[in-house]
């Protein structure tokens, strides 16, 4: 195993839909280096993709002058991924998606990204911009934990 504890990798992506896949590829490589099993890497990839899509779409509002930052920090037992945008963040958590309401047209078919992030990783926390440093979501997966 390659020693990864204490290291951090940074990625900067353009605010264009599709580039979330680049963050997925980078996150998957870091998680593989740390020895995460493939199911956990799939969970992380989907969570990172959803975080980047929200940063591109809602945070940076598809403004290509702005970029999305992804910082991957490894400790001995966990990988933290911060996905940073230039928006003002989210005021409150959306309600948990309800498939029956969606199917019956009582709620928007969309609105599952944040739910999936929370469901797929061990920690998901949204932090609103303070002092113009950007808003971010912080995702954590732990090496000892099994896939949900």
């Amino acid at each position, binding site marked *: 195993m390659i020693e990864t504890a204490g290291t951090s990798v940074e990625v900067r992506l353009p605010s264009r839909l599709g580039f979330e896949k680049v963050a997925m590829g980078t996150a998957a490589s870091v998680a593989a280096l740390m020895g995460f099993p493939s199911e956990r890497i799939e969970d992380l990839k989907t969570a990172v*993709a959803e975080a980047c899509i929200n940063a591109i779409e809602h945070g940076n509002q598809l403004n290509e002058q702005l970029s999305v930052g992804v910082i991957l920090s490894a400790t001995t037992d966990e990988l933290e991924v911060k996905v940073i945008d230039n928006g003002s963040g989210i005021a409150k958590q959306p309600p948990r998606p309800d498939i*029956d309401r*969606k*199917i019956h047209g009582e709620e928007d*078919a969309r609105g*599952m990204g944040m739910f*999936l992030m929370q469901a797929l990783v061990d920690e998901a926390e949204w932090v609103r911009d303070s002092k113009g440093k950007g808003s971010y979501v912080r995702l954590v997966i732990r090496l000892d934990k099994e896939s949900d």
Partner: protein
Amino acid sequence: MQTETRTTIDHTSTPGDQSVTVLRFSGDISSNSREPVLGAWQNVSSGPVLLDFTKVDYINSSGIALIIQMLMEADKTGRKVAAFGLTPHFQKVFTMVGIAKYAGLYKDEPTALASF
């Protein structure tokens, strides 16, 4: 890696000889897939519908929302829908968001066809 979505429409039948329309997706299912997903639904004949995800590499929550919109249409007209070819990860994701309640998720085409 193919990023655009392609949909081909096939026809098959259940073991009990009921005719079934199969929508075979390939590429990504994302916010760009409105036409290949919802447009394809318009071309589906009556009877049960099978969704083939075998050649899909990437599905995100906007793509899942399109699948849900397709299931809304199916629900309105009382059509049965089943899916196969999802990776274990996406079977889990589809179950998490509740899709499994409106479309059976099966490991392969024969198993899915036998479910109708």
